[in-house]
């Protein structure tokens, strides 16, 4: 008797819990699991949005289309017998994106940490300063700022106006120069260091002042204290910021889209991965190819994140042995 009521209770408890979880479960299966599987399937087809009924299996065709140029190919025969052209811009989009991620993320973290340390002092007005420094991050993802950025870095924009006023001549049109366009986007990303700064600031506040006091008594200078105390104790926070910012940077889209006017900019110098994917998928209707690109992006992010986590055991101090 008791046993049956126990089972009924257990059953009821599970039903109630799953009722609460239901929206998330539905979303998880319909909007995450199913699309992921479907896009993997699509990545082996030549699915064209405008003529879905003529979809054919092309095996690894889309993947060869991406990386064929590495092997010196320009075209190849798909399993369907059709001739496929290698994407001449894919590798370029990869290199633009890697440059963007590997330059902007470290710069942003260094800047964020520097400002966080500046603010981690017993100063008045720190909440106000923190708010002001967060403003670029608050607004940075908006179309308004992307539009503004393009205007700032044009030949007759604000930046050149300021530079000219302090004596520089022969200034380039940053946005339309293949050498500098990506740099303006990196700068735009570094400018939005606010979230990392706030996380660093929260981490710095956890480090007991006594450590620094003791180090001072022992005669350690500021630099030594930074290397011996701040960096190790902050390393879990650094890891966290690094992963979050890296994953985010790989997916950057809006700013490049606006700066390049919907395309990859001059000589594709700002052809971000996601932008290239969008152009292939929605301008050329090559959704099969876009799906393959998405899966490669997922793999790249996954592998890099795994490397960062694996490497973290060498440089992140989790406070074991204290």
């Amino acid at each position: 008797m008791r046993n049956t009521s126990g089972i009924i209770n257990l059953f009821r408890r599970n039903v109630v819990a799953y009722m609460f979880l239901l929206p998330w479960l539905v979303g998880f299966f319909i909007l995450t699991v199913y699309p992921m599987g479907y896009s993997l399937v699509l990545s082996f087809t030549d699915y064209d949005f405008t003529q879905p009924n003529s979809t054919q299996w092309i095996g690894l065709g889309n993947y060869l289309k991406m990386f064929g140029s590495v092997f010196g190919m320009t075209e190849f025969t798909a399993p369907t017998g059709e001739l496929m052209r290698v994407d001449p811009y894919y590798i370029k989009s990869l290199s633009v994106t890697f440059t963007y991620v590997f330059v902007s993320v470290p710069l942003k973290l260094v800047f964020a940490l520097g400002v966080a340390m500046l603010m981690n002092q017993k100063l008045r007005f720190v909440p106000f300063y923190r708010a002001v420094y967060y403003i670029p991050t608050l607004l940075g993802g908006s179309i308004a700022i992307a539009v503004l950025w393009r205007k700032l870095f044009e030949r007759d924009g604000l930046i050149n106006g300021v530079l000219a006023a302090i004596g520089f001549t022969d200034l380039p049109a940053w946005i339309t120069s293949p050498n500098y366009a990506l740099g303006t986007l990196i700068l735009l990303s570094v400018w939005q260091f606010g979230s990392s700064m706030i996380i660093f600031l929260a981490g710095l506040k956890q480090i007991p002042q006594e450590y620094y006091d003791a180090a001072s008594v022992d005669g350690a200078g500021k630099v030594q204290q930074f290397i011996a105390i701040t960096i190790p104790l902050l390393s879990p926070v650094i890891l966290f910021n690094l992963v979050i910012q890296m994953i985010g940077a790989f997916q950057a889209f809006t700013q490049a889209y606006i700066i390049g006017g919907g395309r990859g900019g001059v000589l594709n110098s700002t052809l971000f991965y996601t932008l290239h994917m969008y152009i292939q998928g929605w301008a050329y209707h090559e959704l099969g190819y876009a799906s393959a690109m998405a899966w490669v992006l997922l793999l790249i992010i996954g592998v890099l994140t795994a490397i960062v986590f694996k490497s973290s055991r060498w440089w992140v101090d989790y406070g074991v042995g204290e």
Partner: protein
Amino acid sequence: MVLENNGKAATLVRHGLTHAFIIILGVAMIYPILWMVISSFKPNNMIFSDPGLIPKALTIENYISGWRGYAGTTFGTFFFNSLVMCAIAVVGNVISCSMAAYAFARLKFVGRGVWFALMMITLMLPGHVTLVPRYIMFNSFGWVGSYLPILAPKFLATDAFFVFLLVQFMRGLPREIEEAAIIDGCSKLGVYLRIVIPLATPALVTTALFTFLWTWDDFFNQLLYLTTPASFTVSRALRTFVGDAGAVSNWGGALAMSTLSVVPAFILFFALQKYFVQGIATTGIKG
């Protein structure tokens, strides 16, 4: 005594220098934004000839000409669309994410550990990998051109960040009140509605705040799914307003509407600052 005074003076000078440095750097940081706001009040022909902040002439002409929008649709419509879309997104996220979070944080059920781990994995998943099938699916529903592809996911707790944030917060709430309520005969639904939701208000405000801002700024989905000017949101409209090649003649109007487009973010930020800091510091929300 003298030494102590010297020390105090030195500290004072050091602090003064730090303040000065922070202020100068801060002004440089927000200079572009200040310039945008001020330039939006300058006559069109003076915007780019003048990098300074103090305008030689003031006008609201840019706001009048910009507000007219394009394709017969004014920015009044675009702002209305954005506000309604964001409000619905906030409602969806607050309901669906708090339900999932309550289950994860407080209820015992078979498979909880597995589901929670899967939810955490989706946190790191780049959204692009689901993009194409979602588009095909929403298109087959006839939803492309409407707000449904943007809003329906909000009612299905797809923003795992907020589920995580709310789980963290709910785990920190005292259990005693909930236990007392259950002894008094309150159902789980009653506990959720009458106790957990009110107590979790700070985390729910953070959720609402970031949902609003991210939905307002989320350009990619708006670019994909909103197809007619009458349905455009502010972000989507601004982009067309500026044009593909950036060849707009009315830069004053573009800057004026850009300025207006960031006003809601500004108001929310300064009104609800502590929720911002909490939200970022506890979950590392990206930005």
